């Protein structure tokens, strides 16, 4: 592969230099097509380096400043780590097909790949890559045009994840849950998944990220989803990372005609969390619902950045993001809606609401609309505020203690996004997670 060219005169940061070094040393048994993909991705990354606050898309999450060093690529986990991962990310009452990864490695003993529903295939990414599966390699990085350094890094280093295919017209009722548990040692994880939902098929995907350790570790995750005509996917991503963890994840989706996407990102912990979504609505009548919720405390920082590209007529997108911020935590919401010429009758709505529970908390909201069609409905808004004192008084006047009144009202605030989740057992499990998180405030 050789040394990647770093063109700018700027001196590389330690982290950038280390990434180039690791990439150069990466002993590759990759098929030529895959090696080419990785090299192209790393070259693209090297052109800009780590994104910083002068990059509009990364304005509030300066990765160059935040990523001071690069943790080593994860080594295979010890058995003890696997044992402790057994109970990770269990969503009470949700019967899911669990595929577990510990310390960045697939853990077959903890995973359920048996009795696969007809028309469903789930395989570890490492297998598909090792086999040189041409169909997979051809689709990786091709779901949408994403020009982003963090995503490019993921493509350059991607190690493990899944490839899921749901065949034409197949409805998979049982949610598929990917559980990524961090190992005990400082490490960097590059996780990548590809999900193809074929014509008229339907599935539910849960991605859970968990870390028990107080050690610093870095997650760079990416999921690409192809929704063919009339396909439907409900996706739920839960990040409950360790206190010193940095988690950057990229979600890329393409929607063909009449496809339905419902995405929900739920941040419940981690030092720095970034969820960036690139949603390409390419087919008429497609619908994308994008929701997010942050419940943050301490000095946690969560950034939701959204690019919604409407390229077809009569398509809809509804975005609703809610943040509950305590202590000195920070939430960022950036949302850009692009309506391309000819995407008439587009209906796009975007709303970010923040509840501040402390004076030291901070919210940054930046919506953008770029509209090149003349018969569309687009709206955006944001609110930032504290709990309504009058409501607290009303609840207390009925005998509810102050702390409980605040919890009830905060749960109600977050509840608006959770209520949209279609799967009832998932909705209840999420409500439980909210209560649990608020009780430990």
């Amino acid at each position, binding site marked *: 592969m050789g040394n990647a060219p770093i063109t700018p005169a700027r001196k590389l940061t330690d982290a950038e230099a280390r990434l180039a070094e690791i990439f150069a040393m990466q002993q590759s048994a990759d098929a030529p097509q895959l090696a080419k993909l990785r090299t192209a991705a790393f070259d693209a990354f090297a052109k800009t380096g780590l994104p910083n606050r002068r990059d509009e898309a990364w304005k509030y999450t300066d990765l160059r400043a935040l990523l001071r060093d690069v943790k080593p690529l994860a080594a295979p986990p010890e058995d003890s780590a696997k044992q402790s991962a057994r109970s990770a990310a269990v969503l009470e009452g949700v019967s899911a097909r669990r595929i577990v990864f510990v310390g960045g490695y697939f853990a077959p003993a903890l995973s359920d790949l048996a009795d696969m529903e007809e028309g469903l295939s789930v395989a570890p990414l490492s297998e598909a890559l090792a086999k040189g599966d041409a169909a997979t390699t051809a689709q990786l990085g091709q779901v949408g045009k994403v020009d982003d350094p963090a995503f490019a890094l993921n493509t350059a280093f991607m190690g493990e994840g899944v490839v899921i295919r749901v065949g034409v017209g197949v409805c998979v009722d049982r949610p598929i849950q990917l559980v990524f548990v961090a190992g005990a040692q400082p490490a960097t994880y590059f996780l990548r998944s590809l999900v193809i939902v074929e014509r008229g098929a339907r599935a539910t995907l849960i991605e859970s990220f968990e870390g028990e350790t107080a050690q610093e570790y870095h997650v760079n995750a990416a999921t690409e989803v192809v929704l063919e005509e009339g396909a439907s996917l409900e996706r739920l991503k839960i990040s409950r990372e360790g206190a010193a963890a940095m988690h950057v994840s990229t979600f890329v989706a393409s929607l063909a005609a009449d496809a339905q996407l419902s995405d929900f990102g739920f941040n419940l912990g981690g030092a720095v969390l970034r969820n960036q979504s690139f949603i390409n609505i390419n087919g008429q009548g497609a619908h994308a619902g994008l929701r997010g919720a942050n419940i943050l405390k301490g000095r946690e920082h969560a950034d939701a950045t959204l690019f919604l590209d409407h390229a077809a007529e009569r398509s809809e997108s509804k975005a609703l993001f809610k943040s509950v911020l305590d202590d000195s935590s920070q939430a960022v919401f950036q949302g850009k809606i692009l309506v391309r010429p000819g995407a008439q009758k587009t209906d796009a709505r975007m709303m970010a609401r923040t509840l501040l529970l402390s004076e030291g908390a901070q919210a940054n909201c930046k919506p953008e609309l770029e509209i090149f069609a003349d018969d569309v409905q687009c709206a955006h808004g944001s609110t930032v505020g504290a709990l309504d004192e009058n409501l607290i*008084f009303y609840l207390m006047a009925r*005998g509810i*203690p*102050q702390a409980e009144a605040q919890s009830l*009202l905060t*749960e109600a605030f977050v509840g608006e996004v959770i209520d949209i989740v279609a799967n009832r057992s998932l909705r209840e499990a999420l409500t439980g997670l909210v209560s649990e998180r608020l009780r430990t405030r």
Partner: protein
Amino acid sequence: MTALLEIRDLKAEIAGKQILNGYDLTVKAGEVHAIMGPNGSGKSTLSYVLSGRPGYKITEGQALLAGADLSQMSVDERAAAGLFLAFQYPLEVPGVATMTFLRAALNAQRKKRGEEEMSSPDLIKRVKELAKILDMDMEMLRRPVNVGFSGGEKKRAETLQMMLLEPKLCILDETDSGLDIDALKVVSNGVNQLRSKDRGIVVITHYQRLLDYITPDVVHVQSAGRIVRTGGKELALELEETGYARYQSEAA
């Protein structure tokens, strides 16, 4: 016997402005008192001071509930001690299911009093009984608290809360406002069911109309932040005739 509510020379202010100017009132168990008065005479202020709304500050005097100093208790402690304020404008609480709210309120009060919590099935049964008395559809109670309710529906819901919580002292702040005659009868019927020898009720109202349905034992006239006259139920009828003008000039 200790009075249920004993207010002595109470002075209170909001944002530095004195609203209650030496208020005296004694309510004994078993009694229904009506407090009448013109707009701006501090009727709602009295109810907020007693219930402990933030921003309402007692500067002098005392308010005792069954002998306990209200100013030493938080809002929820006052509720657990048996004080209930039926709001003039009950609030909508989006996202909080009515049954969740009722359960949280009842069981928080019971817990504070060292009583056993009510089980969910018992609670649902009790709420159903009360809804029937108040002519409320159970469907409404499956919604978030008061959300989308009409003025009359909110007052019924408020009365239902009061009947469920069984307070020692009920303060009804302009419960008749926004009620049509049918709702007025239903709500009054609910309040009348709460009349008992152990309970005190204070009805704050601008109009005599409500007192046709909830007959008071004692009627007070409030003006400029204190009680200026006290009499029997015939005083309410007299006020209906003469209006409040003479009390306002007296106070000024």
